[in-house]
Structures are given as C-alpha cells and as structure tokens.
C-alpha cells in the first residue's frame, strides 16, 4: 500500500525534489483522512438506513404539519444526499455530534463525561496484559512443548474463548458475592459519590490528587475486578502473540550466533530474541488497547461501569441514534488513531524500517 520510493528522494513535476520522509508523512495523513471519511460515510449511511423518522424523533408524533416541515427544513433533509453528507462532515469536524434525544445535551459533552471511565479500565487492563502476558509468552516459548508451555496455552485459550461478559458475571459471583474480596458493580460506593473533585475524570488519579485515600481505596476495589476480566482477555492475546513471535525469533540464525559467543541463556532470550520481538509487540499492544475499548462495552454492562460502552448501549435502547452514532464515531476514531500511533511507533523503533 506504501507508494513511496525506497531511500532517496523523488522528483515531482519539473525538477522539484521532495525528501522521501515528507512523502511518507503525507501518505500517512492522506490515508488517515480517507479512513476518516470512510468511517463517517458508514455512520452517515447507517443513520439514513434506520427506519425511524429523525424528524418525528425530535418533534414527537403529535406535532402539526407546520412544525414537522419546519424541523424538516432545519435538518436539511430536503437537500440532496451529498449535501447532507457534507453538512454532516463539517459538523463533525467542528466537534458537533448532534444532540442527544435522551439527555437533550450535546452528544459530544455526554461522551466526554463518560469516556475517562472507559479509558481507566482499558489502560489498567492493558497494563495487566503487558506485565503478565509478556513474561507468560516468553516462558511458554522458551519451554516449548513442556508443561509451562501447555499451561500458558490453556490459560490463553480460555482467556479468548470465553465470552467476556459471562466471565465478568462468574467473577462477580465468586469474588464479590461468595468471597467478598472486592466491591460490587459501579465505580464507587454510592456513599462516596460526588465527593472527589473531578479533575481528570479518572477516579484513581483524582482521588490521589486530593489525597483522599479512603475513596482511592474504594475506587480501586471497584476497579480491580472489571479490569482483571478485561485484562485476562488482553493477556491471553498478548501471551499468545509473544509466544509466537519468540518461537519465530529463537529459531533464527543470530540466536545461534549469540550462543556460539558463549552468552548465558537468559541473556540470549531477553537481550537478543526479545529485543527483536519488542518491535512487533508494539503493534500488538496497540491492537489490544483498541480492542479493549470495544470489549469494555460488554464488561461495562455487567459491572454497571459508567463508561462509553454503557452510554452507547443505553442510547441504543432509547433509540437515540445521534448518541449511538456519535459514540460509534468516537470509538472508531480512537481505534484508527491508536492503530496509526502504534504503526508510527513501530517505524520509529525498528532500525530496519528507518
């Protein structure tokens, strides 16, 4: 897909030489733009496909013909499709995601309120996936075929074969209902609601900032179970990919070279093989984080976690199309953004690509 030339520049037009780096950047930006247009086109089409009448949704079904016509013109529904799409796009670029039917607030504001909760979950889950999943994957690769490998593979298999919402429910049953080790659904006990100053929206950070350790502890207690569930999913994937990458590297010639040099085995594994895997893991971690944003939809429902997943789900049940589409676009943009970021990082870190 990359249409830029190899090293060296490229002449464009009458003797105008452009450095290849610039061309690459322009290429990436164009790609981003096209994807964004594609995303919005899809959501726009979905919005038009719905059988519900958008005018009726706003004015109600007892409005007079005059009011109906007025709102019809206001929404620009009399204009041809591509004009409507253009209008839609320009609104999006300004950050106007429409108004929520449910809350009568701008969708963009609502999303901003709910997003940090999801970010909190996804981040902690990804960290879990990284710090537990990677060592597991390396362990399995180094001991390929033996019991360590089998255990890691089984855990991984269960991790991504189990329906995440079911896993969440079972975990709630065991760790909350039966063992009482963690707090229940929700982000905070109702008792503590609204006490902490919402600086970032991330409860842990906010509580730490106001040095309210009781609330911090409570927030943590609520966070730990859903984060672990999402984290299990993350670590299953990361462990599996790490194992696969490590096995691939360990069979390479340069590993033999390292051993011939007399380097101790742990050094060969971590300093030589793993360093080559690190680069590929960046992409994997990016993918994981992005898919956790999505996986949190179901987890948030189970744990009554007020994040963007809950928001989209509730909007869906209330036929609030603006909110649903707005949420979809935001998550979609994040998805694309994260993937693009990890791709960029990959190019920066891998000396072969530079």
């Amino acid at each position, binding site marked *: *897909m990359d249409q830029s030339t190899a090293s060296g520049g490229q002449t464009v037009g009458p003797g105008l030489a452009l450095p290849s780096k610039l061309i690459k950047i322009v290429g990436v930006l164009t790609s981003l733009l*096209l*994807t964004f247009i*594609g*995303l919005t*086109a*899809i*959501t726009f089409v*979905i*919005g038009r*496909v*719905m*059988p519900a009448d958008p005018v009726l949704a706003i004015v109600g079904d007892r409005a007079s013909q005059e009011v109906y016509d007025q709102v019809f013109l206001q929404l620009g529904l009399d204009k041809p499709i591509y004009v409507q799409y253009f209008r839609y796009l320009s609104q999006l670029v300004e950050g106007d995601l429409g108004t929520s039917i449910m809350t009568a607030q701008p969708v963009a504001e609502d999303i901003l309120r709910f997003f940090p909760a999801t970010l909190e979950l996804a981040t902690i889950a990804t960290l879990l996936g990284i710090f537990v999943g990677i060592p597991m994957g390396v362990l*399995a*690769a180094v001991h*390929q075929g033996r019991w360590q490998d089998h255990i890691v593979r089984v855990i991984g*298999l*269960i991790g*991504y*074969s*189990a*329906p*995440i*919402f*079911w*896993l969440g*429910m*079972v975990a*709630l*049953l065991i760790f909350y*209902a039966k063992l009482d080790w963690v707090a229940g659904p929700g982000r905070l006990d109702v008792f503590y609601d609204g006490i902490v100053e919402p600086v970032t929206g991330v409860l842990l950070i906010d509580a730490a900032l106001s040095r309210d350790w009781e609330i911090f502890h409570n927030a943590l207690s609520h966070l730990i179970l859903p984060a672990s569930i999402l984290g299990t999913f993350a670590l299953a994937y990361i462990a599996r990919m790490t*194992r*696969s990458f490590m*096995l691939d590297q360990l069979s390479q010639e340069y590993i033999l070279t390292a051993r011939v040099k007399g380097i101790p085995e742990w050094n060969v594994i971590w300093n030589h093989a793993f360093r080559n895997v690190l680069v590929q893991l960046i992409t994997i971690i990016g993918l994981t984080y*992005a*898919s956790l*944003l*999505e*996986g949190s*939809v*179901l987890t948030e*429902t*189970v744990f009554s976690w007020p994040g963007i997943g809950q928001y*989209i*789900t509730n909007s*869906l*049940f209330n*036929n609030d*199309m603006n909110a*649903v*589409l707005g*949420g*979809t676009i935001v*998550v*979609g943009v994040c*998805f*694309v953004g994260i*993937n693009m970021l990890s791709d960029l990082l990959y190019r920066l870190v891998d000396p072969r690509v530079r």
Partner: protein
Amino acid sequence: MAAEQTLRGWLLAEIPESKLQARCQRIFISWLAFIRNPVAVIGLLIIVGLVGIAALAPWITSSDGLEPDLANRLLPPSSEHWFGTDGLGRDIFDRIIWGSRITLYIVALVSVIVVPIGLLIGTVAGYIGGLVDTILMRLTDIFLAFPRLILAMALVAALGPGLENAVLAIALTTWSPFARIARAEALTIRNSEFILAAQVQGVSTIGILTRHVTPLCLSSVIVRLTLDMAGIILTAAGLGFLGLGAQPPTPEWGAMISLGRQFLIDQWWVPTVPGIAILVVSLGFNLLGDGLRDVFDPKSGG
C-alpha cells in the same frame, strides 16, 4: 482386510492416476498431519459434537424449551432437569440443545456471506491490481478500522433487533481480513507461469479468477475463517446478551445469559450454563483453527 489395504494404498500411491485421486491424496495426507495434533482433534470433536446435537435435537430433548412452566421455576440441576430450569420454568438443558441450532445457523450464515465477498474482493483486487486494487483495499481497510461489536451495534440499532439483522451486522464487520488474505494470495499467484499459460490460451479474466486463483486462496481463507469463528460466535453472543440478536423466546445462548443475569447470585446455574456452552464451542473452533493452521501454514504460528 483386503479392501482397506487397497484404499489406503490408493491414497498413498506415489503417482496419482486421476485428478480425483490426487485430490483425495492431498486431503488424506493433510488429515494425517492434522490428527498428529491431539489438541486439534479435540477441537474437531467438539465441532462435530455440536453439529451432532443440533441434528439430534428432537430426540435428545424432552421439550422444545419454549413453553413456560411457572410451577417449576428456578429448579437446581437434578436428574430430571440436568441443568435445572430458568426464570420461566423452562428446562435449561433442552434450551441449550435447541440453542445449538441457532449457533450453527449463525456460523453457517456468516460464512456463506463472508467467504464469497472476501474472496471476490480479494482476488479481484490482487489479480487486477492498480486503481481497482487501491479502491477495494481502501474499502476493506475502512471496515477493518471499525471496532467490530460497536459497528454491529450501530447497524442493529438502525435495522432493528433480530437474528438475521445481527448476522448481517456481524458479516459486514468481519469480511475484511478474508479479502486481505485472498488478495495476498492472488498477488503471489498472478505472476505464476500457469496463469500466464491460461491467459495465452485465451481464458477470460473471470475464468482465471474462478478456476485458478480462487481455489488456491480457499485454504488460507478457510483456516482464517475457522480461527475467526470463535470471535464471531462471541460477538453474536454479545449482541444476544445486549438483547440485539435473537428475540425471546428463542433460546439463543447469549440472550439466555442476559435473561438469567438477575438470578446470578442465588440460582447461579441459570446464567452460568449457557456461558459454558459458548465457551466450549468457541474453544472448539479455536483449537480446530489452530490445528488447521499448523497443517496448512505452519510458519505463521507456534
């Protein structure tokens, strides 16, 4: 037995004498490689089991799992109700068995939509190349860029809940990887000499695509399909859990978990058992997919 010997001999002969024999030989050798992996065989058994109980449903169940029986609500597992009864008194075992048909329906329907679309777009893009390739791949990338469940939710929101709409939504969000795989294979193949030979013989582009390129892409696509199937089932279950898939009283496993959620603490079997069913089937596809990939494309994994 003499008859067995000649069949095995026919399958292992050095030089096949007909196209049919060659094809059977290839399948047989792949099968031998496949069964060397015990875990993959377990996956195959699970899927075969799934098909089996779906087919035998009328004979192994005692009811159709749809009629409420309020006198027998929320009974724990017993010899009469192996998995207990749910909030409306329906036998959970029966509902699970009937639900397997729905799972298979989803699997089949999604495959039937996704594979042809993916193959079509992928092979055309890879073989023809140029602008067509760029446009088609842009389209593929856009769908790939979308988070699967959320896009499916948006689609179902627009189309309305229901099993077929959920299947359509899932299909629209999962065809992209197959197009990419088919394209990659087509790119590799299109410069081969036998393609050149076919072109020289005057075979049309469509002919080349259907008779030469597509069959070669098929095995990679099928391996990937099996590997993705678990994800598809989980997405379908997720949609069902959110109430966006099959509507009650249909015994779709995800929906069963959602309905049973309120009984989680005291009658744990109601939401837990359908989840185990989903887990087992998903596991089966993952194991089968891993096994197939080890046979057909051992370089790409551990």
